């Protein structure tokens, strides 16, 4: 394939752009691609691309396959791969879903993973309970999966109790 810009060199860079649902393919040689990239310099150096880049540095291939795109945020549908691509999470729930995987990156950019500043006045207690419920629900799914029904029943009661408390708050 020949480069679409200079029509002389071999096209080695292939890009697919999707603009408002319309798919457009671009095939360029390295030189022309770089010239285009230079025009786009500000974009390519945005903090989000930079963050996404940080994730891939020194990534252990085994570690990557272990997760391989199964995890999806139940609220917004975002996957971890999408975050890697965009450098932004889809919604606040994503932080809960991808908590473990995000921790190293957060430590890298913030040097810290424990908030010490302001907290919403009325939210403190509820947030703790909600997080507990989410954790229990996760355990419940695992218990059902392992057919440990006695444990599942126990967990279900705990969840109901906590949810009752949240509603009463």
């Amino acid at each position, binding site marked *: 394939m020949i480069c679409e810009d200079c029509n002389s060199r071999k096209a080695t860079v292939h890009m697919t752009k999707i603009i408002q649902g319309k798919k457009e393919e671009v095939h360029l040689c390295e030189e022309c691609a770089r010239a285009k990239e230079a025009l786009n310099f500000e974009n390519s150096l945005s903090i989000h691309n930079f963050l996404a880049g940080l994730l891939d540095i020194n990534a252990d291939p085994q570690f990557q396959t272990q997760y391989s795109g199964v995890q999806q945020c139940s609220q917004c549908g975002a996957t971890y791969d999408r975050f890697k691509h965009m450098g932004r999470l*889809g919604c606040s729930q994503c932080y809960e879903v991808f908590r473990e995987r995000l921790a190293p990156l*957060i430590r890298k950019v913030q040097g*810290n993973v*424990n908030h*010490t500043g302001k907290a*919403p006045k009325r939210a403190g207690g509820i947030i*703790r309970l909600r997080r507990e419920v989410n954790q229990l629900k996760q355990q419940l799914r695992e218990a059902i999966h392992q057919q440990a029904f006695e444990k599942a029943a126990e967990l279900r009661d705990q969840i109901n109790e906590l949810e009752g408390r949240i509603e009463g708050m």
Partner: protein
Amino acid sequence: MTGWLKETGPQSDIVISSRVRTARNIEEIPFPHSLSEISAKEVVEKVYHGILVGNTGFKDDFKLIAIKDLEEIDRLNYIEKHLISPDLAKNTVIGNILINTEETISIMINEEDHIRIQCLLPGLQLDQALDVADKIDDLLEEKINYAFDEELGYLTACPTNLGTGIRASVMLHLPALSLTGYIQAVLRAAGQIGLAVRGIYGEGTEFLGNLYQISNQVTLGVTEREIIRNLHDVTMQITEKERAARKNLLNTKKIELEDRVFRSFGILKNARKITGNEAMQLISDVKLGASLGLIEEVKIEKINSLITMIQPGFLQKHYKTSLNSIDRDIKRAELIRNTL
């Protein structure tokens, strides 16, 4: 007219303005970049309701503006006045702003995060800016359930804003440190203690007009006041170094300094056409001269306001017409002559 432009504050010989920006998101609603138009409207309503409905004390002070309803010149003008970000200006679908009459507070809605509260004050007033932003935040919190996590603090679309969601910055005029080259050491030191330094106008233009913006990078694991205190202390140190460098110039190279300042003043008062870059450099000289008392006939705040007045958006708004770059250079020179 914008409050931070027409007045001066503490340390105003060097510190032009202080800014605190707080990022917040609403629970259970996707972040703006993956938000439907309908949900985005809901976000706008919630914020509007939080600030303007009920006894908030802000009822008559704020106006809500949809980015899509603004002319391009107005958008540019708001960016130049630092009231909205370039990103928000581009968002003509769901982007909105609430701005107070004084133009010291702007609440950006559906930018990268649902809510970004910004307070911008003249001079070095970081604590005051945080107080204002905090008050708005408390007010919104009464009606909005924020996305918050005990470990990670306020949750933001980008992990670089997690925790406090606070980005504090100061805009500094550092001509003497730049002239003597000491600025490099200052910039390096700032970087080492977790502060970011960049130019003010246009990302590519390196420190145009010797203006520098310094801001915190870390937002998580530190309290709001710690962020402010750290930036304040570093700013005071840089301010002292700049003053010492100015004094040194005055003692050792007075005639050269005066020559430069008055030549620049002369060009600004007489030029018939001038580019933005040249004007920025000359204004920097005149501002230095005024701060040192060499020029007494022009007030610092007038020079500060010139920095914004010569930008393309402001010029076109002022002359109520769109101008090409040659016309802009002519009108820019005219506006500077009339102001000085």
